């Protein structure tokens, strides 16, 4: 094997995979919104994906809020700008930290479980069985999950924002005493709709990516039970990677819009 081949193979695999994932996304938009609709399964998935993730999302958001506040304190103290602490911390929590951390947590928790669940249905012929019994498995399994993650992730992020800000309040209180009223006034003086909206919009994309990649890896699983583990793992790695790319694009786009 020459060096050229050694490099070109992974690159080729990358582009083939990217192409297949795009086709999968196109199929979602083509088939996912046509009747018959699978409302009941959509509700069940939203409950599984959204409600069941609340404890984990709350925990991480709370810790993030607390830790970022504690760590920002000394830097602001140098400039005698401690009163800025709530507003500065809340902007970075809402704009960046909560959405990205929540998305990564969900890529790990939800992405892997979708990949493993659909993957094991694939290798045990359950997907074929659905197909021959007249239910479109793509709509029943994939479309419902992708829609659920797309709807639930922004909601989880909004929820996470509130918990993170509460964590920030405790962080401020560790050094100096402040009232909750004063804290919220300081936070919402600085935090605008222009901070919240882009973060919600990018969370929608994060949710879409997590659902889509998890379903894609599951739906294309081969090689039996061993393949199921590999699919779950790849779902997490690939969706986390794309979350960062989307985040970067979102930062650029909102920067450009800001200038206009």
């Amino acid at each position: 094997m020459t060096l050229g081949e050694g490099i070109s193979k992974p690159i080729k695999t990358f582009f083939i995979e990217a192409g297949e994932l795009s086709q999968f996304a196109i199929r979602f938009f083509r088939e996912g919104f046509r009747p018959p609709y699978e409302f009941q399964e959509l509700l069940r998935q939203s409950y599984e994906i959204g409600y069941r993730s609340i404890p984990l999302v709350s925990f991480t958001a709370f810790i993030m809020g607390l830790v970022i506040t504690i760590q920002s304190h000394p830097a602001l103290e140098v400039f005698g700008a401690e009163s800025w602490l709530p507003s500065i911390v809340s902007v970075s929590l809402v704009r960046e930290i909560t959405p990205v951390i929540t998305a990564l947590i969900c890529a790990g928790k939800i992405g892997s479980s979708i990949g493993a669940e659909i993957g094991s249905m694939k290798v045990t012929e359950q997907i074929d069985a659905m197909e021959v019994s007249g239910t479109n498995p793509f709509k029943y399994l994939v479309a419902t999950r992708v829609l659920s993650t797309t709807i639930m992730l922004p909601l989880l992020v909004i929820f996470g924002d509130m918990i993170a800000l509460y964590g920030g309040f405790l962080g401020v209180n560790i050094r100096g005493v402040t009232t909750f009223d004063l804290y919220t006034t300081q936070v919402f003086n600085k935090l605008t709709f222009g901070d919240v909206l882009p973060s919600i919009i990018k969370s929608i994309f994060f949710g879409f990516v997590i659902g889509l990649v998890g379903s894609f890896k599951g739906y294309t699983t081969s090689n039996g039970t061993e393949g199921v583990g590999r699919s779950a793992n790849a779902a997490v790695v690939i969706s986390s990677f794309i979350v960062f790319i989307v985040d970067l694009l979102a930062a650029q786009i909102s920067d450009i819009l800001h200038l206009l």
Partner: protein
Amino acid sequence: MNPMAENRNETVIEIRNLEKSFGENHVLAGFNLVVNKGENVVVLGRSGTGKSVLIKCIVRLLDPHAGTIHVLGTNMLDLKQEELDNMRAKIGFLFQSSALYDSMTVQENLEFPLRRHLKRNVKYDIAKMVDDALLSVGLKGTQKMSPAELSGGMRKRIGIARTLILNPEVMLYDEPTTGLDPVTGREINHLMLEVQEKFRTSSIIISHDMNCVRMTANRVVVLIEGKNYAEGTYDDLKKSQDKNIKQFFD
């Protein structure tokens, strides 16, 4: 007139010159098969010879490259999605792995094929339909169990019950006894005969288990190198001097 129409009452499945490849792997290379009404035809072949590919082509889980497939007089290779779904409802498919939905109870598994195949404006007693299907496979009262709680033989039975609930005219069994102990295997063989009698089904049974072949086959078709290599009753084949056929009996 459609040439199929005159003997439609006799021929249930007719496969002509079926070809299916995966890349360079030519799995089916001109396979022919006819199943008559009420008949159990066993397709006998070693593992990896394309037996599952064959029956997956019949229900269009796979698309063949060439050849024709007629089921109950309908050309399976020229159907719109809705027509295909209606045809599939007439064909019961028992998967090799049983393919029970792990996340659902037995009851929900049996109800699943009904969700797209019940007529509007008709009142169905779904609980009774489930009851009857379970009774037919000898597993009355298992509605609340989950697939994980079932033994291999029970899973096969529930898999059969799930296809019987739509009253299929044709049954396709993919290695129904593989992986079962001999006693359980024999029970499944009996069950297939009962189904044949009670539901008047015509079946393709895929197997390399000679007990299963002996007990269930009205006729056997041997699949070798993508073609129907030999054909006959169990006793015909047993007498054969051909070494490719003898190997199944050793």
